[in-house]
């Protein structure tokens, strides 16, 4: 039953992601993306990763996609116009051949060198509680305090950059 459910959700994720990048109307694409994010969250819940599922819904569905929808609706033509360029059939076939070849190569590689990890079932990770994540994130031993702190500098740099790039220049201001 569990396996069956997984395959249903996984194929839903694949289908919705495919729709998100192929639909000519950007608005429809964004809505397909919402569905794909929800289905991903469902997979996380199946794996008992509640925190990830929550973050997925809060950040991606709640934040990023709504943001994208607003941008699409505010920029006039993008939402209605069929503005994605059409690719010729020959190129589509070419791309398909390359991707199929790549996937076949991967499959061959994995069947000739079966992974040790996929065969053993006892490697399954234990469910992680939100408390544990918080403690690991800030603990100095066996934790992630360094990346946690460095991320703040990354955000600072990105923030400064965003302000500089998006600021309207006032030419008069610079005259000494």
């Amino acid at each position, binding site marked *: 039953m569990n396996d069956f459910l997984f395959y249903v959700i996984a194929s839903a994720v694949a289908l919705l992601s495919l729709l998100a990048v192929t639909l000519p109307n950007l608005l429809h694409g964004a809505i397909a993306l919402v569905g794909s994010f929800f289905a991903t969250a469902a997979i996380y819940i199946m794996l008992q990763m509640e925190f990830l599922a929550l973050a997925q819904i809060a950040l991606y569905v709640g934040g990023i996609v709504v943001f994208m929808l607003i941008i699409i609706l505010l920029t006039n033509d993008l939402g209605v116009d069929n503005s994605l360029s059409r690719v010729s059939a020959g190129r589509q076939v070419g791309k398909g051949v390359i991707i199929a070849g790549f996937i076949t190569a991967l499959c061959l590689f994995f069947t000739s*060198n079966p*992974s040790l990890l996929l065969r053993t079932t006892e490697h399954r990770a234990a469910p992680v509680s939100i408390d544990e994540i918080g403690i690991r994130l800030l603990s100095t031993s066996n934790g*992630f305090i360094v990346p946690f702190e460095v991320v703040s500098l990354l955000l600072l*740099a990105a923030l400064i*950059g965003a302000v500089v790039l998006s600021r309207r*220049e006032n030419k008069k201001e610079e005259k000494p």
Partner: protein
Amino acid sequence: MKLLLPDILLVLLAALIMGYDLYKGKVNLTSTVPFHFAWLGLCAIFVVLLRLPYDQTALYPGGYLVTGTSLLFKQVFVLSALFTVLLSGSYFTPGGNKRGTLRHRSEFLTIILLCTFGMFTVVSATDLLTLFIGIELSAIPLYILSGFYKEDALSLEASTKYMMMGAISTGLMLFGLSFLYGAAGSVTFEALAKFCTANPDEPLLRLGVLFVLAAIGFKLTVFPFHMWAPDVYDGAPTPVTAFISVSSKAVAVAFLLALLYGPLAALHSQLQPVILILAAATMTVGNLGALKQERLRRFMAYSSIAQAGYIIMALAGDAGLGRSSVIFYLFVYAAANYAIFFILAAIGRDGDEQRSGLQGLGKNNPVLAAVLMLTAFSLAGIPPLAGFMGKFFLFAAAAKQGYYAMVVFAALNSTISLYYYLLLVKEAYIIEPQVARKPLMLDGVQFISLFLLTAAMLIAGILPSISDNIMAVAG
């Protein structure tokens, strides 16, 4: 805490410059005080770095590792940031550049410093997460800096293109790192190394390495991931181009060194052929591409693609030789590249940064022409200069593993590169200018910087003590 001093000082310097701007920025937007803060501070950090003990290793809480090798890399990053700051001087002064005057100097300097801190993090990381955040902190600011000419379409194109390519490479890297994490069950280098030694044939591991190599290939402009480089180098403001060509490349190499000789050491013998093929293809593509370039920034892009090929060739060598030869070459490469970019800044004051801008240099300004010649020879690897020693060590690292055919191939490639570096010299000495143009002039900062860089190229080529010291620390 002594070994952590450069990192702390760097963040404090960034905060100081930003803070000064918040306090005084509204009053005087063209103030040069942040500029003086930045170069003085970076000089001070470099002095601190030189005075630290290189034979000690310290692991700080949270897994921040400082070793002699990482301190050497930090020297490269600090010097590179210092010369970028000095180079940017004339681009922020009105009339300093024909393309336009850059604005928001203190934001520019803060972003450069934070970016350099990201590079510090990469060489000090002991887990995949820190490594990833570090490499992102050293990449994302560069997308912003490339777009600093806000009214220039080329600059905006460069920024957008760089960001797209960077996003793809980040995606690939996360994918690869998650495979490595999935295989080892932990993000620490220690656990990953243990797993690699126990199961070197695990396919998930190879898949992870494949993706990580592809991702870092983007940053290092390795063939076939190099196509963004010419456009970005050409569009970005020249100081940013210089910073991308030196620091961004150095941090990508540091990242590869950290993984290949650290946790993935057990896979190194399997990866050697891959590295050599990538190196051979990269140097050939770079050299052939550079032959026809008229625009100097684009020319430097292809030249630096070729140089990346020589650098990764050394990664096929053993840990000691690989590390020390790469670090020595990075110093040499940085000195030569910055010298070229300072000359570019002089050309760019009154004209386009094209090769024809060099015409008549031999007559008008013989000293600058001589510096250009020395730099071109150093980049090509002509004996008495540092470039020769650098290339010699890189080739020796590969030769020691028995890859003689590869060394011959690289030497042939080096000969091709000599042709196009000599084109620069020919332009400066032989070709008569078609139209009368103003003789190239250097301002004080440019003069002193070029003097230091030229001295470094000569001294590192002649005195063996510098390369010996690096060998002793990293070897």
